[in-house]
């Protein structure tokens, strides 16, 4: 595989099939994401959205097709999963911060232990990331002492500390109460405006319409329809998309 260049998509998914036992969850999904693009994946529960983005950092393996991230071929039998995951950040629905470490330590841990960077540099970067997610006053708080929204913002900072090429967001606001959803969305929006490539699985339609460059609608393991938000939300063609949007909007 040739080295990745700016003209190639940074994430390229081609005809991906994924099964859990006999249950086929992804039935031939393809999408290309360019550097700096913000892509939202929407669709009903169980349509394979989360499974798809979990495949992008090899948390799930795939049974068919191919995925390429920054020139790294995921189906390569000699795939170095750790090298891939250094390039791909992921934020989960349930935050999953490490409860025995403070917020700042959570952010510092991976660069220190995985990238083996200098501690002072890492501390400086972690501090600026905590400021970026507007939590500079919570550096020494433990996850248990933070609200859901604050924990989720620390989780975002923790992923950013690895300076990834791509950020994956798996329904990051689904476990939050309505008031704290906004603070997390604002953080993601800042990130998108800074030019970070983001792939989001979300149920926040208003947010998707506002920040996405491209929207994919999945149902039953396939991409039913996709397009830029303007045409997607107003001129959906497929009846399944229309039905889903009529229920949501």
């Amino acid at each position, binding site marked *: 595989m040739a080295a990745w260049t700016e003209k190639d998509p940074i994430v390229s998914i081609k005809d991906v099939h994924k099964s859990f036992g006999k249950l086929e969850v992804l039935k031939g999904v393809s999408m290309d994401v360019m550097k700096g693009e913000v892509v939202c994946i929407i669709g009903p529960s169980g349509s394979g959205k989360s499974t798809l983005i979990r495949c992008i950092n090899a948390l799930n393996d795939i049974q068919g097709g191919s995925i390429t991230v920054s020139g790294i071929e995921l189906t390569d039998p000699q795939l170095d999963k750790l090298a891939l995951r250094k390039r791909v*950040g*992921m934020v*989960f629905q349930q935050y999953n911060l490490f409860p025995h470490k403070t917020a700042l330590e959570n952010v510092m841990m*991976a660069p220190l*232990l*995985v990238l083996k960077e200098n501690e002072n540099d890492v501390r400086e970067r972690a501090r600026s990331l905590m400021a970026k997610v507007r939590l500079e006053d919570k550096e020494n708080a433990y996850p248990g002492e933070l609200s859901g929204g604050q924990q989720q913002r620390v989780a975002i900072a923790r992923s950013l500390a690895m300076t990834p090429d791509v950020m994956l967001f798996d329904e990051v606001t689904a476990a939050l109460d309505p008031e704290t959803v906004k603070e997390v969305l604002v953080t993601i929006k800042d990130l998108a405006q800074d030019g970070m490539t983001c792939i989001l699985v979300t149920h926040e339609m208003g947010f998707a319409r506002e920040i996405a460059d491209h929207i994919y609608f999945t149902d039953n393991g396939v991409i039913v329809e996709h397009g830029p938000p303007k045409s997607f939300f107003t001129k959906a063609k497929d009846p399944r998309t229309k039905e889903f949007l009529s229920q949501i909007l």
Partner: protein
Amino acid sequence: MASKDRQTQPQKPSDLPVLKPFVIRPPAYASACHWLANLPPVTGVLLFAPLIIWPFASHAAGQFTMLNAFEALLKWIPFLFTSGFLFNVLISVFAMLFGTLAGAALGLGQISKLAIIRRSSWFITQLFRNSPWLVILFIVLLALPFEFVLFGVVFSIPDWTKAVFGLSLPIMANISEIVRGAVLSVPTAQWEAAESLAFSRQQILWRIILPQCFKRMIPPWMNWYAILTMATPLCSLLGVEEIITLSRQAMEAEDNHPELLVPFYSFALGMFFLYCYPIARLTIRLERKYAVKL
């Protein structure tokens, strides 16, 4: 008005389970410690009571009275304590040390990614967890040589080191299960979060998972230490000179009067109680302190 009624009428206990007061039941694994810790502290005094009451109660019976027996015990107590009971403690400490080290390794083996290590660790764990301790002790004693020759020098293996080895095997198996259970008690989401940050499996285990569940392992670990200490008299059947063996020898030296039995064995019982009871109480306290925290 409704509130007035409630004040005047006595509250009836509900028969709906959800409305009953919430009771925290201790986990079953620590049952030995729970049993011991639930005894009132006065039990310790009661255990020594026969020593004090018996001599007076049967003062007039025969030539060798209970009072004589009591005097004999007093004479032997320093010896029984220093050469006997402290030796039991020593055996328990060494067996616990080796059992913990081997058990931790075996427990981590049980969650290994390599099927052969995982299966064999599981098998060893189950084998020693489900065997009678006495049988293990006998096998170890009879299967191991009493001496071995290395470069022409003869090294003898004392019985008590075999006893330590034999007792550490079931401890190893039970510690293995504690480690496995504790690691599995950490939500898999923690593994996934760490994996997505490119941590290696080793790093995840040592830096993220084990620090989170270390505290949870302490109470059951202490429980097994108390059980082990109470099991050390088993070594007397193998001729190890611990408190029970020495008590028997002391009684023989005092002409084997049957009146000696109660004072001598009560003393041994009391020593074990005084040693294990505080451990059991501390275990319960730590268990409450470290209970379900996530």
